[in-house]
């Protein structure tokens, strides 16, 4: 029975008397409570995506100074709206949905304490609205916070209050997930968690670390803004702030990898080639990835060299090694799984035979490739103590995190939403063709825009966070106009990428509102070749299948990594002598 408010019938799947249904694609037992709350958080995330996406247009068209859309005062407000809605609200609402998928849904349980989930959602929405209101109503002497709200720049106290409320709401919304894990382990103490649930659990721990760091940054700053205390320390704030500022991006990363394992399995028949290796990689993340917050402090005066070396390298590159593991394990899972299903002739037959017209699959693959080649490699570059000097606060940094958070996480989450539309909302896409095209179009356009961001940052030293610098720096003849041609390419492809984002929202919302209802058997085309049962045959172990295609791809990746590394170091050594 649909709720009285549910006029679109989005929450009205049919369940058995015990409240469960069997998913025809994944074979999972899905409880009504899980369905409903995943949908609630997912829909809220899409609203944030749409809202923040509007500001992608105004921000990109200001940075492309030929257009020069906004005045500086408006630019910083729009940039703040863009950052908070996309980098925080779209991501974090999705991540709560992913916790509910990775926890209760994969484990075949109901979502416990749903009133807490509802309360968490309401508090998160309240915090998000407050942050947006505070940014939008910024008045002198206050400045727009951007993402970071660095002290001692005056930023509206309401902003810090909103951020704190949102953080607390997120912790509350995560409680039903933790309760699920508690019940599961209490009932089945000897049973190993499925890999996706394990990954979700690691994500949740990293998330709590990040969120607590956020409270350390924002609560004292709020007190200072309210003039309850007089103390602030710019370096201390930066260190505390980046626990959440970078930590939230690590949540994105680990949640995204959980989604990669999940979706490649479900729609392409990927299997886990080694539970031991993949789980070890998640453990490495658990211990080391949050050290990466130091990447923001490498060109800072207040932290020692030893501290920077240890933390920026995640303790001898522990988390980079973990990512290298996934870079092999996930494609290898697809390759071996598909070879097992008879879909893997030659070196790359497993890839060419894959369901590329399924947007769930293509989104996931583009996310994996583009995150690795553009996001991951550049992250390690700018995370090297010395190379950071050439990346810090340049537009290349913006390129890096658009590669990770947009090409990586957002594209993967779009794939997940395509999946949820078919399997949880039970709607056909309003247009199969547009849905198929969207991941190709969006990833390609965004990929080129991101490359241009990196080039103008590294090759021309164009700074981030400014409304005007290429055509003109007020008060001097000097400008960075040599970067103008690359900015033209950036502007055009940013526009195309935004069109791709609009296409996503149109297809997603259009399918929810106007899409045909999925009836029995309609989702058969989503199921991986040969069905998912094959993954459970103990006499046919997946690790025995060939992984040479993956091995070749990974060697290409490592070569690209090494070449980029050498080029970056070459550029650095062209500089004059700096530092003790």
């Amino acid at each position, binding site marked *: 029975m649909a709720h009285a408010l549910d006029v679109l019938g989005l929450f009205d799947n049919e369940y058995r008397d015990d409240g469960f249904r069997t998913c025809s694609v994944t074979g999972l037992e899905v409880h009504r409570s899980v369905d409903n709350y995943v949908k609630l958080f997912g829909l809220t995330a899409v609203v944030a995506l749409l809202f923040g996406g509007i500001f992608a247009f105004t921000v990109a068209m200001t940075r492309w100074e030929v257009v020069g859309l906004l005045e*500086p005062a408006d630019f*910083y407000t729009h940039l703040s709206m863009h950052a908070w809605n996309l980098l925080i609200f779209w991501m974090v609402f999705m991540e709560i949905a992913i916790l509910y998928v990775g926890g209760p849904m*994969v484990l075949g349980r109901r979502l416990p304490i749903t009133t807490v989930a509802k309360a968490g959602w309401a508090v998160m929405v309240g915090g998000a609205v407050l942050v947006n209101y505070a940014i939008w109503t910024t008045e002198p002497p206050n400045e727009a916070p951007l993402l970071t709200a*660095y002290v001692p720049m005056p930023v509206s106290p309401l902003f810090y209050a909103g951020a704190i409320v949102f953080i607390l709401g997120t912790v509350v919304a995560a409680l039903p997930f933790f309760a699920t894990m508690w019940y599961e382990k209490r009932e089945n103490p000897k049973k*190993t968690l*499925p*890999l*996706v649930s394990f990954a979700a659990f690691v994500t949740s721990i990293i998330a709590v670390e990040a969120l607590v760091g956020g409270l350390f940054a924002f609560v004292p700053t709020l007190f200072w803004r309210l003039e309850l205390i007089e103390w602030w320390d*710019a*370096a201390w704030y*930066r260190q505390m702030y980046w626990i959440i500022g970078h930590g939230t991006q690590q949540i994105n990363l680990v949640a995204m990898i959980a989604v990669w*394992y*999940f979706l490649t399995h479900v729609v392409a028949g990927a299997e*886990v*080639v080694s*539970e*031991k290796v993949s789980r070890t990689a998640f453990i490495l993340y658990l211990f080391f990835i949050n050290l990466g917050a130091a990447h923001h402090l490498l*060109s*800072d*005066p207040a932290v020692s*060299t030893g501290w920077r*070396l240890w933390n920026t390298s995640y303790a*001898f*590159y*522990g988390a980079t*090694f973990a990512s*290298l593991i996934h870079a*092999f394990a996930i494609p*290898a899972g697809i390759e071996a799984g598909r070879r097992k299903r008879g879909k893997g002739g030659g070196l790359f037959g497993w890839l060419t035979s894959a369901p590329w017209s399924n947007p769930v699959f293509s989104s996931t693959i583009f996310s994996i490739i583009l995150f690795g080649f553009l996001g991951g490699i550049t992250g390690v570059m700018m995370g090297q*103590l*010395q190379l950071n*000097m*050439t990346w810090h*606060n*340049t537009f290349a940094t913006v390129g890096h995190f658009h590669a990770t958070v947009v090409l990586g996480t957002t594209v993967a989450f779009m794939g997940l939403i395509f999946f949820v539309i078919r399997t949880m909302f039970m709607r056909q896409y309003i247009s199969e063709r547009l849905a198929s095209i969207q991941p190709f179009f969006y990833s390609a356009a965004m990929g080129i825009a991101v490359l241009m961001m990196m080039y103008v940052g590294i*090759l*021309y*030293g164009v*700074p*981030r*966070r*400014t*409304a*005007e610098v290429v055509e003109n720096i*007020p*008060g001097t003849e*000097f400008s960075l106009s040599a970067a103008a041609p690359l900015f033209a390419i950036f502007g055009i492809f940013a526009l195309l990428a935004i069109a791709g984002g609009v296409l996503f929202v149109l297809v997603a919302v259009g399918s929810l509102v106007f899409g045909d209802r999925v009836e029995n058997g309609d989702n058969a085309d989503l199921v991986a070749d040969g069905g998912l049962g094959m*993954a*459970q045959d*103990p006499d046919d*172990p997946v*690790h025995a299948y060939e*992984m*040479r295609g993956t*091995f070749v791809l990974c060697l290409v990746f490592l070569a690209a990594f090494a070449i980029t590394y050498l080029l970056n170091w070459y*550029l650095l050594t*062209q500089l004059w*002598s*700096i*530092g003790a």
Partner: protein
Amino acid sequence: MTSPIKPPDGNWWDQPVNRRESIWLGLGVGWSLILFGWMSAWTRVGDQNPIGETFRIDAEDYREKLTDYKDRATETDDGLVPPDRDVYLQAMRFQWDGAPVVLETGTEYDIHLNSFDVQHGFSLRPEDALSKQINLQVLPGYEWVVPMTFDEPGTYHIICNEFCGQGHRSMHGTIVVEEG
């Protein structure tokens, strides 16, 4: 049992690992150590490191130092010529106090960086080679002393690359490097 959404059965820890995956793990460890080793070694043998002494200091105290330095420096048409190897700069909304400054190639200068008000970014490049650029964070409350030796003469431009307020985009200064 190798589904990521089903609990693995039995002793999954002891399942064999594919040979190619094992090789990749080895490559991954090797690459990680190279990344760390190179970065660490460069702090000892390399010429470009974001490393210098840091002191805590009030903005006003730093201003006194800066004023004293300016008194001792020689004013020329191109800018201040520092009295010795110390060069003082203070970032403030929306200018670089202490710039323009005239330096010589081949001399190691200690560049003192501090902010009077909010956080700023010290982004420096020579006019004729924009790809040669470095960026350092400038914080109020801290004095960072970063040694620099310029090898090419020319006009080097400082722009602020940390958002510091509405006039941020106009915050510009120069370092003129002459043949020493």
